[in-house]
């Protein structure tokens, strides 16, 4: 089982991100369970959503306490919510930011994680460019696909098209593709730097 926890704020499409992730996994023939942490539905309030992926039926309904990946849609939550609570030692961290882990003050915290599991992507900027609204969720799913390979970008695109009406879907598909390329490019640059 692979467990993903998504942190963000009301209005950023946190719950929708978990739902689309579950649809993407379903389209690949896997079992998926997406559910929100209920209640904090006000715009701007901290929101958590969860997604479990497995090759068999998922019966477990407790909140995700030991995620294999955390997706942080809003870096201002780093100082407000225990977003890394229970994160596995080899887990993935994906943050929506144009800054680096060091600039966010996380260098010490992340020093033992595999470098390839630490990702930043300017998802809000991508969303503003492609969608015209600060909704980073689709872009972050594209980045998640690129970083983890757990789901394909194609499945993310299909999930987006299932969730949104055509015009909004296509803008989100482009945002996901941009973020996918961004992460691929960064990974390539890192590998290149290491090779040098």
């Amino acid at each position: 089982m692979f467990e993903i926890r998504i942190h963000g704020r009301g209005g950023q499409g946190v719950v929708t991100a978990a739902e689309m992730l579950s649809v993407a996994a379903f389209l690949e023939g896997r079992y998926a369970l997406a559910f929100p942490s209920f209640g904090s539905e006000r715009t701007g309030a901290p929101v958590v959503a969860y997604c479990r992926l497995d090759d068999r039926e998922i019966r477990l309904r407790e909140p995700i306490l030991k995620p294999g990946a955390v997706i942080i849609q809003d870096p201002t939550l780093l100082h407000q919510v225990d977003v890394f609570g229970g994160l596995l030692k080899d887990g993935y961290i994906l943050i929506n930011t144009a800054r680096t882990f060091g600039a966010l003050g996380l260098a010490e915290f992340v020093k033992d994680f595999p470098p390839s599991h630490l990702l930043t992507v300017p998802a809000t900027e991508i969303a503003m460019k492609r969608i015209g609204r600060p909704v980073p969720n689709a872009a972050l799913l594209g980045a998640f696909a690129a970083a983890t390979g757990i789901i394909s970008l194609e499945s993310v695109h299909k999930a987006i098209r299932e969730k949104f009406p055509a015009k909004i879907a296509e803008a989100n598909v482009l945002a996901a593709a941009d973020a996918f390329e961004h992460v691929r490019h960064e990974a390539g640059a890192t590998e290149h730097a290491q090779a040098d």
Partner: protein
Amino acid sequence: MLKQIEGSQAVAEAIALCRPEVICAYPISPQTHIVEGLGELVKAGHLAPCEFINVESEFAAMSVAIGASAAGARAYTATASQGLLFMAEAVFNAAGLGLPIVMTVANRAIGAPINIWNDHTDAMSQRDCGWILLFAETNQEALDLHIQAFRLAEALSLPVMVCMDGFILTHAYERVDMPSQEQVDAFLPPFDPRQRLDPAKPLSIGAMVGPEAFMEVRYLEHVRQMRALELIPGWAEEFREAFGRDSGGLMRTYRTQDADTIVVALGSVLGTIKETVDAMRDKGERIGVLGITCFRPWPSAAVRAALARAKRIVVLEKSIAVGLGGIVAANVRASFGGHPDVVHTVVAGLGGRSITRESLARVFTAASHGTLAPLTFLDLDHGLVERALARERQTPHSGPVAEGLLRDVGVVAAKIS
């Protein structure tokens, strides 16, 4: 057809396949997505003929459902929590009149203090209202139970409440196998009402009944519920043959064959319990699970048979009879005819408190070691309770309980669960 959709949407689509002719809608979390989904299906013409009626309250929702059902229409509504309480008078009327309405209850706590999260207090408050009460474990079972519910309701001329955990199921995206219209039509015949208001053949439904026959009306209600106990297993079997999966029935056992400890529970928490039980089995604990699908009528003989060989029973329930303890536990004890084995009550998940494998394993292990109290509140914050009690001891003017506790707890946004 396999789909990855929200539980509420799955139920809405399943209800539409049952061809209801009147849907009464009044929004209340966490039920709202169901009637919204149905509203869209009616508006788009996918469900016809069907009258979708936006009513002004839950009391009106059930009253309109009563009128529609009495006129011979297949009637459906959905509610939760305070909404169920607000319609309570009409809920009893529907049962007393023998009208086969189907209602979803998206289980949610009852205030005060106001709380929108899941537990079973709402449905349990109406457990003796005369409706059949079914509890779904998964979204697949929730949609399947609705299809069975119309059949059951109309065959017995009794209303049926299908309970599904609010948010945990209603707002969860998971895989469901949506049946075809042909499958549902083959399983669920058109509504042939036992009684019908018809201007061409005038009659009255709802006469005042005095002491001369009131007891008999209630007795017949009871007899019909007891009859349901005989019919439900057969229909679940028929459902399995037609749809290819197990859903419904009175109850289901899991790894109970040689179990010394059996955990009894209802609803979606059964999944987390089964995961916990599997882990404990791996360590050699002889533990199993009894999931109750049909809470009313209470399948007393079946429960007794399922628990007969257990040395101890742990009833884990999302409800509380304040001043007594467990509601489900009291029913389990009643099945032993006054000679209960060791029955522990664990009250869990009230008002949306998370129920984790870690906490479950702790109480189940305590039960098997003989150290579990007769009544336990899972993950109760004893420190918080002590502070509140201390305040009450210090001053006769300690103020409102909920506000005092919230001040002690502080900001909750930092918590994950």
